[in-house]
């Protein structure tokens, strides 16, 4: 299947993001640099109906990239087109087309899954009739129905994560962006989540995940981009990236080349 025939649902073009480091941060991270380049001229494309993985070590700039894609932060330069809409110029349009999920985005403790589903549906302008149907299906799918009226504060970590997942897709978005989807989850809940991502893919959704876990990429992703120090080092299909090796070995090879060159 020729990639060029596929629809380019996400086009990332030269995204760059720097942060000013405060004096406190400089001390904390034992560094003298005043400006940290978290993401450096990053480009890639994700096609409709695929799972794209961003792989990189801690501090590589994965979360920063995904935050820019979900319009939470603005790039210094560069742009990304989500279903044709610019994250810089039309953030509202982008917001209604993506579902963004990260463990940093919390749900308010005092509300029930039922209330939160309705609340976020309202924020997304979902029609009440559609909302009801969707809620029933998703709650049943994740076993949330039994906990629909239990306050978030009283839910287990796994159930909370499932509720977060469901709430982030109340509007049935075409693109789902997921930062570290299995972080902090036990193997059973992690499998529920990865199975669901595959299911979404089969429905024709586009999924972007970030992780530092090789096995997750191997299990899920069609294509992978390797980020080190904010730069896209390699971006291709999983097969082409691995070139017959397993992903972990291949990654360390690349890592050595890159970091070795730099120092």
């Amino acid at each position, binding site marked *: 299947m020729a990639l060029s025939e596929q629809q380019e649902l996400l086009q990332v073009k030269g995204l760059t993001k720097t942060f000013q480091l*405060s004096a406190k941060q400089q001390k904390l991270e034992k560094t003298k640099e005043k400006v940290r380049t978290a993401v450096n001229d990053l480009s890639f494309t994700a096609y409709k109906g695929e799972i794209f993985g961003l792989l990189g070590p801690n501090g590589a700039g994965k979360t920063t990239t995904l935050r820019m894609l979900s*319009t939470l932060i603005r790039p210094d330069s560069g742009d990304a087109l989500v279903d044709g809409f610019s994250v810089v110029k039309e953030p509202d*349009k982008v*917001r209604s087309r993506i579902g963004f999920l990260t463990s940093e985005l*919390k749900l308010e403790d005092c509300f029930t899954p039922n209330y939160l589903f309705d*609340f*976020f549906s309202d*924020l997304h302008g979902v029609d009440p009739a559609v909302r009801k149907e969707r809620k029933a299906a998703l709650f049943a799918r994740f076993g949330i129905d039994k906990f629909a009226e239990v306050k978030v504060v009283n839910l287990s970590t796994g159930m909370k994560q499932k509720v977060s997942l469901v709430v982030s897709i109340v509007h049935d978005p075409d693109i789902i962006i997921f930062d570290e989807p299995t972080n902090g989850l036990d193997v059973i809940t992690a499998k529920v989540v990865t199975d669901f991502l595959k299911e979404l893919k089969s429905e024709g959704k586009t999924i972007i995940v970030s992780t530092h876990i090789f096995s997750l990429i191997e299990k899920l992703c069609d294509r992978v981009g390797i980020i080190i120090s904010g730069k896209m080092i390699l971006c291709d299909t999983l097969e082409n990236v691995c070139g017959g090796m397993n992903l972990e070995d291949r990654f360390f090879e690349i890592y050595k080349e890159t970091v070795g060159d730099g120092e």
Partner: protein
Amino acid sequence: MRNGIITIMKKELARFFGDKRLVVSILLPGVLIYVMYSFMGSAMKNNFGVDERYTPTVQAVNLPVSMEALLPQTGFAVITGTDVAAAKEAVTAQELDLLLVFPADFDAQVAAYQAASGQTAPNVALYHNSASTNSTFTYQTVVALLDAYEAGMVNKFDVNAGGESYDLATAQDSMGSLFAMLMPMLLMTFLYSGCAAVAPESIAGEKERGTIATMLITPIRRSDIALGKILALGIISTISAAASAVGSILAMPKLMGAAMEDMNASIYGITDYLLLAAVIFSTVLVLVTLISILSAFAKTIKEAQTYAMPVMILVMALGISGMFGGGASSELWAYSIPLYNSVQCMTGVFSFSILPVGVAVTVAANAAVTLLGVFVLAKMFNSEKIIFAR
């Protein structure tokens, strides 16, 4: 109203009224004020007041004929006796309230006395015990009686001696001026504490808990979040302030003592209350907006409460200025300065001298400031430096 604003308002109100602790925390000050003021009032009455059922006892030595008719008018029990030393001991022991010692031929001496002669005047000794409130009260009553008797003897003319009331201020006016002095200060403080109890929680709290970003990835307008929050917080703060105000109005007569027992807020008409409600709600919006903006700078609720302190000082200062301001301003510009205009309006309403146009200017000015604040807050919600500050 836009759907987004209503969604946010509903959520804020649901969060608030779903949490019993939060509800209690805003209603409690009102209850506490009532209990504390009542307690202070009754404590003051016990310390400084005289039990009305108590009949003081006065012992008179050498009671002159002129006094025989006069002294019982006080309603005190009058006994006679000659043992001065024993009676003094009884006063010290608080068994006797007052010992009166007249010169032996008091009436004759008084009649013979010439003020111009330079001789010492006849002296009446009143032995009392200042440690006893009953004795002090008896002493003061009898001194007043003797003064009146003395004044009556050399009477050339009287001042206000008739039975009528000479103070032409109506009871309503004097009560109004008392309210006008106390209430702006109290109300402003209550309004501030109502706002300070909820705004940092809702703005800095959501930042601290990481829940605001979850809303920010949805297409809802930032200004809808800001306005929805401010309106909901305004409603909650108004309830809190109303609880405090009701508590203090109910407790005021108790604090002021028996003399003020007939003091109540029914001297104000429905228009007064409506004007006051408009002033209060628009003031709360200004305060909530100010504190929300300060809270948005903070990373934690604690930090937000610290940032709100200057607002508290400002509010208190304005409240106190209202106490000594000498009534509401008649200049319209005074009603265009938020918070200052609130104090002016409150003083005006309570002293029956409110200019409705002043209230109108106040409400308009406060609405303008609130809208400006909503704009600023929306900009802040859009700023990653504010929302994701590390």
